[in-house]
């Protein structure tokens, strides 16, 4: 009796071994791309298009044969805009789901909360958030797609200088993006010969900024106004600005580089300028613009797939994913250290946000010039520079 069951057990074992060998030879193990994004919550306008983009292109890449002959698997979590959640989910991705690379972190807070884990786990991490502190000082395993808030400030100040403005009024949101944008603007303004003479703020849920704008308007010598913020706050600022009939040139940051902003601000947005990635004006790009093809195909595909307009923030996810794929292909393996090295070696990569040139001391790879200067004309974006 015992001999029979022993034989039977041995037989089962042999069969299992044989099957698993066969199976593993046929099925290619997927490359796991982990992501934690702010899909819902106060930063959902960042995370939602980012997730849509990642899902869409992982599917597309898999249809086209995957990477290194292996399919991509996207494992994603929603941190609801909360840095604590982001840290927990990053931990879950690294230790539980054992992903090969992370493309995520919609907000700076979420990104920075995950950085210690990423550095310790020695896994490449491509962040989709903007603050300059993410890559300055450079951290070995952390890379960033968006241009930093400092670059945005520099681009805006450059344009202001060009138009001959000396003194500007600044109004910013007290949320992370607005606050760091304000800090960077104050830090680099003097390099462009510009003085910030008025400095007002508003809360993320405030519904009326006329008081702050009135203060700015009444400050002597103000040549132009800059609003750093994202969400609906800048739209309210814009409407207040128009209602108050302030005739000073008005600048926004790349935080509102989306058609949704135009919907909200309406006619009040006419004439304002902002730095943005070329995604907003795909058809206006000249034929010889290297980014033209990438931008147009991304915009078209996104619109066809989801039925909604493309957003700059989705573009960050696109570039993040493509950079990851590029590095994996160049490394020929998903070994984390090799992929990280290849990320650093990326040169001249044409993305929708800009053309990336990474280096050991530059984990962003973009310059202020990657921002195009756009102006709102007749309710639509117009390329100025």
């Amino acid at each position: 009796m015992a001999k029979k069951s022993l034989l039977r057990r041995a037989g089962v074992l042999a069969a299992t071994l044989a099957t698993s060998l066969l199976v593993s030879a046929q099925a290619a193990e997927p490359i796991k791309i982990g992501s934690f994004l702010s899909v819902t919550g106060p930063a959902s306008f960042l995370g939602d298009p980012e997730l849509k983009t990642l899902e869409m292109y992982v599917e597309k890449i898999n249809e086209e044969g995957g990477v290194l002959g292996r399919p991509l698997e996207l494992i994603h979590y929603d941190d609801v805009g909360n840095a604590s959640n982001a840290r927990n989910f990053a931990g879950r991705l690294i230790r539980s789901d054992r992903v090969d690379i992370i493309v995520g972190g919609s907000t700076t807070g979420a990104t920075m909360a995950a950085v210690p884990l990423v550095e310790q786990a020695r896994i490449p991490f491509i962040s989709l958030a903007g603050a300059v502190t993410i890559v300055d000082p450079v951290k070995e395993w952390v890379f960033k797609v968006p241009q930093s808030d400092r670059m945005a400030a520099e681009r805006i100040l450059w344009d202001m200088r060009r138009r001959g403005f000396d003194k500007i009024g600044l109004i910013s949101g007290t949320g992370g993006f607005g606050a760091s944008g304000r800090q960077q603007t104050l830090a680099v303004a003097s390099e462009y010969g510009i003085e910030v003479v008025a400095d007002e703020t508003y809360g993320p849920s405030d519904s009326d900024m006329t008081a702050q704008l009135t203060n700015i308007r009444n400050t002597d010598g103000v040549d132009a106004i800059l609003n750093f913020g994202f969400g609906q706050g800048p739209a309210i600022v814009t409407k207040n600005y128009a209602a108050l009939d302030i005739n000073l040139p008005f600048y926004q940051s790349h935080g509102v580089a989306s058609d949704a902003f135009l919907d909200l601000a309406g006619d009040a947005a006419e004439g304002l300028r902002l730095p943005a990635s070329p995604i907003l004006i795909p058809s206006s790009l000249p034929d010889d613009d290297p980014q033209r093809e990438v931008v147009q195909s991304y915009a078209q595909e996104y619109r066809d797939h989801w039925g909604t307009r493309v957003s700059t923030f989705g573009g960050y996810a696109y570039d993040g994913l493509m950079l990851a794929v590029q590095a994996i292909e160049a490394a020929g393996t998903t070994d984390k250290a090799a992929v990280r090295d290849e990320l650093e070696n990326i040169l001249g990569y044409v993305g929708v946000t800009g053309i990336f040139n990474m280096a050991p001391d530059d984990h962003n790879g973009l310059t202020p010039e990657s921002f195009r200067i756009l102006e709102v004309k007749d309710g639509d974006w117009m390329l100025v520079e």
Partner: protein
Amino acid sequence: MFSEFLQYLFTGITIGATYALVALGFTIIYNASHVINFAQGEFLMIGGMGTVAFMGLGIPMFFAIILAVLLACLVGIALQRLAIAPAKNADVVTLIIITIGASIFIRGIAQVVWGKDYHVVPPFSGDEPIRLGGAVLNSQSLWVLGIGAVLVIALILFFTRTLIGRAILGTSMNKLAAQLVGVKTQMVLMLAFGLSALLGSVAGVTVAPITFTAYDIGILLALKGFVAAAMGGLGSGLGAVVGGILLGVVEAMTAGYISSEYKDAVAFSMILLVLFFMPRGLFGGRTVERV
């Protein structure tokens, strides 16, 4: 100088009127049932987002608003019937958590059904700002103030002149006694919630052209409304209105004259001060505490 002051005042009164309407909603429910309804802000959200959604279906704005308000009333009544009533004699804190849970739930459904974007609501009478004494007033603000005033007066008349209104007040003073004299307290409670939802949703859609609307605008408005209601004295309609407008004006004045960064902190400090000197708020009645 003066035009600045006027500007801040206009801003303050406009926001203040919104807070006042939210605070009134709190007051009605508190009066009827001694419950602080943290889901109050969601009624405003339903008013605004509901209107957007119905207009998106092609319904003209006027009817869209009516439908949105009706929806809010239904949600309010459902809230009372399904969430508050079953909790019967639960602790005050438990009831607070229930309403917070309800608020999260409603927001979660709104997020799935209506999406997460911000939406524009067309102003009732055009976009042209009105210039007055060197300051600018949004025409929609006048609507907010006007409709607010109408609602307040209607509520006063309702509570003092009609039988149902007095029934609500009676229920709040002594539920058992009210039942003994034949008041259907369950109906009264549902009515109170429905009424509060009506108030909230009308306020929500009236204010939406100024503030935009989205699935999560209810949270902070509910908070500020609660602050205003407490400052004015819970249970006092006049207190709610005064509290709301005072809160709005203090916020705007602080932003204008002192510091826009700390305007909320100053507003909260002011409330603390009011409560220290008048522990029942500005108009809160003296209550007798049974031992």
